[in-house]
């Protein structure tokens, strides 16, 4: 009798624990905040700006494109942040990569594809330099990459003026059309679908009969692709485990044989390469490079990553979260034009959102790390 009652008691106790643990699993997902935030943002603009054309095909593509640009660098920034480091030189790298594409192509007569490859190899160098400095010196990446922020921006400005006599390099548009790889960063996808939808009258048309939104911009596909790739990397590969370990406790990780230095260096290369993808998209879209491109983007990328659930101290976060962080950012920054709210308030919103996210994340961290 007593044995039986004991076993029942045990069983019911187990069930209770299981429930708590399931709730915990849900609450402990890093991207929860960003997902919830995205839903709230869409509900808000659905009510406030639902009938203004914000959610038409054209409007949607617009805010998705802004989100996608930021998302590309935010995902790389999130991986680096999970690995326990920051990269403040991302914004400057965008400007630098832009002129690395434009100057060889316009002034030195290189084919566009080779100057794009040149920009990517420069990105690998810059990322490697950041990484090796941080790993070898043990200095905080905040300081090292802050220095790189100024060095790169200054070099971009000085070199561009030295070579071209000005700070902008226009004239790329003619080169884009015949280039074998430029489409990777600039073409619209699913054009046929959009034309078809236009002919059915489902989406808005221009006066000449072509649809207003011509297709899904390449940047959106990069954004989605990078989110999937980074998530796979984090969750399903050995390298992903090493990223978490390096950021969570680098000494512990090193003691069990994780190559912490190599992991961090590769993540720095990742952010620089992502900045260059961003630069390619922008330069090929605008047909020109500008030395001031990417200004303050490093901070926006960090906001998106933090809103997406990354802890500033490393070891925790998700790529999906960062992608949704960027979506919130892009949706609000474009959506605010469709409302009566003065756009000056956007930065207030941005700061408040980041504060809320950090407080929320802190709460989550305590839940995850504290004893039962």
């Amino acid at each position, binding site marked *: 009798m007593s044995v039986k009652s004991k076993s029942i008691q045990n069983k019911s106790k187990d069930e209770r*624990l*299981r429930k708590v*643990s399931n709730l*915990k*699993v849900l609450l*402990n997902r890093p991207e929860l905040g960003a997902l919830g935030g995205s839903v709230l943002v869409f509900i808000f603009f659905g009510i406030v700006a639902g009938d203004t054309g914000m959610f038409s095909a054209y409007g949607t593509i617009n805010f998705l494109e802004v989100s996608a640009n930021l998302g590309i660098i935010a995902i790389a920034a999130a991986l680096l942040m999970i690995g326990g480091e920051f990269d403040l030189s991302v914004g400057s790298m965008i400007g630098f990569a832009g002129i690395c594409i434009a100057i060889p192509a316009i002034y030195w007569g290189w084919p566009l594809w080779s100057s794009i490859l040149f920009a990517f190899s420069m990105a690998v160098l810059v990322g490697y330099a950041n990484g090796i400095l941080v790993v070898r010196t043990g200095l905080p990446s905040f300081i090292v990459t802050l220095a790189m922020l100024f060095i790169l921006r200054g070099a971009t400005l000085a070199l561009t003026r030295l070579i071209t006599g000005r700070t902008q390099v226009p004239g790329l548009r003619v080169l884009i059309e015949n280039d074998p790889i430029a489409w990777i960063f600039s073409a619209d996808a699913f054009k046929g679908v959009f034309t078809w939808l236009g002919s059915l009258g489902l989406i808005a048309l221009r006066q000449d009969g072509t649809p207003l939104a011509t297709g899904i911009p390449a940047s959106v596909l990069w954004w989605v692709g990078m989110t999937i790739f980074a998530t796979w990397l984090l*969750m*399903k*590969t*050995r390298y*992903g*485990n*090493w990223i*978490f*370990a390096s950021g*969570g*406790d680098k*000494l*512990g*990780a090193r*003691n*069990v*044989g*994780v190559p912490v230095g190599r992991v961090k260096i590769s993540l720095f290369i990742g952010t620089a390469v992502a900045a260059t993808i961003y630069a390619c998209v922008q330069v090929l879209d605008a047909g020109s490079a500008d030395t001031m491109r990417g200004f303050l983007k490093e901070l926006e990328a960090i906001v998106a990553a933090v809103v997406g659930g990354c*802890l500033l101290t490393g*070891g*925790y976060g998700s790529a999906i979260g960062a992608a949704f962080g960027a979506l919130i950012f892009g949706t609000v920054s474009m959506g605010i034009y469709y409302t009566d709210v003065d756009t000056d308030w956007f930065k207030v919103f941005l700061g408040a959102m980041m504060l809320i996210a950090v407080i929320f994340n802190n709460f989550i*961290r305590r839940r*995850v*790390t*504290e*004893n*039962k």
Partner: protein
Amino acid sequence: MSNNLVEFNNISKFFGSVIALKDVTMHIKKGQIMCLLGDNGAGKSTLIKTLSGVHKPDEGEIIVDGKQTVFDSPRDALDLGIATVYQDLALVSLMSVTRNFFMGREPMKGFGPFKTFDVNKANSIASERMGQIGIDVRDPSQAVGTMSGGERQCLAISRAIYFGAKVLILDEPTSALGVHQASVVLKYIVKAAASGLGVILITHNVHHAYPVGNSFTILNRGRSMGTFEKKNLSREKLLGMMAGGEELDKLEVELKEIDRTNKN
């Protein structure tokens, strides 16, 4: 050939003019727990680091499985099955049990560039291994931060055993634990030894060492005061040797002195 798993013979280690260790000899047998006792500053940390390959001894020899060897790095010691579980445990509290268990040595599946971390296999091994110790990991994807100190210690030890340790060096495994937690860990250490491992248990707590140890090496100011079998050694004698019996006697006299001056 003796039945010693590892022999450390006459190990000395100098840092400049400082003699950190002098002529320390220890033999670790299969299935035996050898307790290394010593006060703070006795040279325990230096000895552990020398045994685990972090420091190279300046004198003496290390014999593993009857063959003389030199450890150039902790990796060398590990490859010969000598695993050290440090006080910080090398666990990441934000990461899951599974991810910690396999940190740096993840099981893989697939081919070539499509090789992926076999999460399911890792999960089942981790919870099976933890289950063997009697720790019911309800969800192997729960963060290590949610585990108690004793459970974490067991996880770190169990990880070392899973990855092929023949000799376990445990650095103060019970120092941060309460009475119950410590007894859980000590029980696990005894079980591990019973399954054929050699264990070096480093501690300054005689009450933890005496019940589980088979032999005791006492370290004082960098020198070994000898290795004693349990049958030749009472708990009181051990305690006296370890703290330095004279020190305690002196302390008692001094305390009485203070007491007397206070009264006056």
